[in-house]
């Protein structure tokens, strides 16, 4: 019952966690804009969200009892990632990160396109805030239903 009540909140909460994770990855790219041989990284947000909410098409509310994200470690040298094997819901594993394809090759082998990263960062920030507003709206709706105003 309680699950039904907070279904929408749950979905947006997981989306928010993924947004925060992506914000961190993009911040890392911007931080390493001058590091030689650094490869810019990002992850497929749509796929990660679908995985986190346990639905094939990201967009609807989470199915109850969705499986948490976890990436198989088939080799001892694989990075342990966020979840540390247990993989909490809505957390993306470091091994799920992909390298960005550089538009313009550089002499020092750095593949960070600063303009692109800043655009992505701003975009992600706006979407994070949108997620926050969705949650606030849901909370307000629930509160007004509880109070019966």
């Amino acid at each position: 019952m309680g699950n039904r009540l907070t279904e929408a909140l749950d979905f947006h909460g997981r989306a928010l966690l993924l947004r925060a994770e992506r914000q961190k990855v993009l911040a890392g790219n911007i931080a390493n804009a001058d590091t030689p041989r650094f490869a810019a990284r990002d992850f497929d947000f749509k796929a990660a969200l679908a995985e986190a909410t346990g639905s094939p098409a990201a967009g609807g509310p989470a199915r109850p009892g969705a499986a948490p994200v976890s990436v198989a470690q088939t080799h001892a040298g694989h990075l342990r990632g966020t979840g540390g094997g247990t993989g909490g819901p809505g957390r993306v594993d470091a091994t799920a990160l992909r390298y960005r394809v550089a538009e313009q090759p550089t002499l020092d082998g750095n593949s960070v396109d600063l303009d692109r990263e800043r655009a992505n960062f701003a975009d992600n920030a706006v979407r994070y805030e949108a997620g926050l507003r969705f949650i606030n709206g849901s909370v307000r709706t629930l509160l007004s239903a509880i109070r019966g105003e």
Partner: protein
Amino acid sequence: MMKVFSISGSAVSAQSQRLNVVASNIANAESVAGPDGQSYRARQVVFQSMPTPDGGAGVRVASVIEDSAAPKRVYEPGHPMADAEGYLTQSNVNVVEEMVNMMSASRSYQNNVEVMNTARQLLLKTLQMGQS
């Protein structure tokens, strides 16, 4: 989101160290060799990515290397430090390169500060989640 501060913070610190080195190089651009014949050598920082355990990537200054280029030789016979042939040995700092380095460092610094400001705003809004 809290990790953003440590990532961008490491970048800001690395860039400010780069600015320090640039300042040292520019200050010594005209330094002449001392009695031992060794002139100032331009220093450059080497950045290295510093992965955090959860998939982020900070940056750190791995080392500060000395430029191996030959020192500048200027003909100035009247100078007290000139050698027998009248040449003065100066540092091997390329001032134009250093200026470019400085601009690049200050831009990167600004970018990372902006990232931290954005993260701060988002966190503050997250703290107010569910209120109002």
